[in-house]
């Protein structure tokens, strides 16, 4: 699960036992983190794959529409192609913002508690 627990990079942290891991995995806090990640990432994945497939299908079967000139020699196909780039950049930025605001703090809290041996 993304951003759940950055690994201990320094040797001095104690590595929690498998039992401690299992316990944390069952905890409400961890469930909340997992929900927060999945409810964001999964629908977004479905959405961008659908949008990409739509673009592929339009390229294949809607030649007339794709060839419509918008301005100068720029046609719908070109604009939709560049739009795929733009949406990719936007989704990457959006997910990262979500992760930094919602996932990282929760993951950090769980991590420091476990490594602290509390």
């Amino acid at each position: 699960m993304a951003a759940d627990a950055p690994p201990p990079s320094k040797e001095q942290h104690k590595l929690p036992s498998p039992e401690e891991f299992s316990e944390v995995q069952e905890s409400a806090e961890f469930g909340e983190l997992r929900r927060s990640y999945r409810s964001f990432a999964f629908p977004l994945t479905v959405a961008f794959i659908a949008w990409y497939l739509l673009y592929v299908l339009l390229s294949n079967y809607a030649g007339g529409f794709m060839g419509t000139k918008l301005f100068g020699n720029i046609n719908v196909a070109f604009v939709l192609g560049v739009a795929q780039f733009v949406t990719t950049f936007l989704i990457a930025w959006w997910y990262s913002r979500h992760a930094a605001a919602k996932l990282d703090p929760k993951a950090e809290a769980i991590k420091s508690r476990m490594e602290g041996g509390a």
Partner: protein
Amino acid sequence: MSPAQQTLLAANEASEHRPLIITLFALFVLATLGITIWAGRQTKDAADFYAGGRQFSAFQNGLAVSGDYMSAASFLGIAGAIAIFGYDGFLYSIGFLVAWLVALLLVAEPLRNSGRYTMGDVLAYRMRQRPVRTAAGTSTIVVSIFYLLAQMAGAGVLVSLLLGITSDAGKILIVALVGILMIVYVSIGGMKGTTWVQMVKAVLLIGGTILITFLVLLKFNFNISDLLGTAAENSGKGAAFLEPGLQYGATGTSKLDFISLGVALVLGTAGLPHILIRFYTVPNAKAARKSVNWAIGIIGAFYLMTIALGFGAAALISQDEIIASNPSGNTAAPLLALHLGGVDSAWGAILLATISAVAFATILAVVAGLTLASSSSFAHDIYANVIRKGQASGAEEVRAARWATVFIGVISIGLGALARDLNVAGLVALAFAVAASANLPTILYSLFWKRFTTQGALWSIYGGLIVAVGLVLFSPVVSGDPKAMFPEVDFAWFPLKNPGIISIPSASSWAGSARSCPRRSRTSRSTPSWRSGP
């Protein structure tokens, strides 16, 4: 391609620029060898060799990921495909970029959290080690060798075209040289050396692409509509050149083939072993996420610039000249550099040499990344955990990885030399199809599906591997087509060149059905899938 065609560019242009191209390329090799030796001295334990000590920053790794990903196929191949087929060539660029969202949203962070060195680590985490590691190792090595072979053969073709080397011995020598360099990079420098080589290459490639893009746009006063219009006119295909369909629109089958390719590109990227192991070179999951973000920015900018490269070549060079130089258009980008500088000027010669040297650097860096992925997987998954049952020390693993590098290098030189006259371009698409059918579903299931079993993992890896490779074997990529690997025989019954549309869903569903007969759903030593690194 006939020898007459091959010699055309050589005779006209390349031979007189040969000293300059070789000098620039030698500079790159010397610089990267220096880095490799320096990195080799810093490589002390297994984490250094496999994961570069996990001390790379997100930006550094983002650059290196881009370096690993932007192969000669994307630089020369896409520019050429756009120059010849117009808009359809650009469709590749889009698939190659959008694919990174899968890596960002679903793979990079959990992979960094649950694995140590290889793709096999992630699967072995909750399942029976030996069978799943054998499967993961097999699939890693198969994917990497296909990809490697395409790059090696590409190197032979490219070098013969750019340096005017057309003799068989000359081509074999080039393949051997590439192979030996990659063995040196990987066996001495490990992940640390390879990562720095990728960074240098990425900077050179992006720098070269920005320069050419700027010069193309300058010619058209930064008016993209003019550039596209001139390209369409000069291509002789008119408005159709700017619309989808020239390459894939011919028949219902070719349209289906395009869908299949698109799906494999998007789902395959996040299953390519040489990309996956990059996420282990950073200190934590957050850095893995940030490195994918950097990669998306760098790779996205690069693929946007392929518009200028490809349409620029179509606008400024006649179709006859592009096709005479290489029927697939693979030399369109270097030719464009020459034309931008002026065919008979020193500036043109310098630009051609620069872009050619960048193309060589690209090939060399990508083969190094692929070799590292396969030798790591052999040493860590198969040698240390299957053969030695986890009893091998770190030093023994690294020694095994170095020997595996030499072994894989020698095999690739042999296969590359044998395949030098075969059309192996289809192998890259095959590598993506196997990665999408065998690797990605298995990784996603084991990360996100608690009840995924060892048996399910084996079904999904071997099933995906066998279906994808089997379908390609009986496709027009291998036989029964003038452009096939073996054009003189015909045993093709599968009509599509890209198996993804069949192999991806079939492998995934087998994996799912294996759930009904679980051997054990979770092992006793199971811990949450987000356990930390070493």
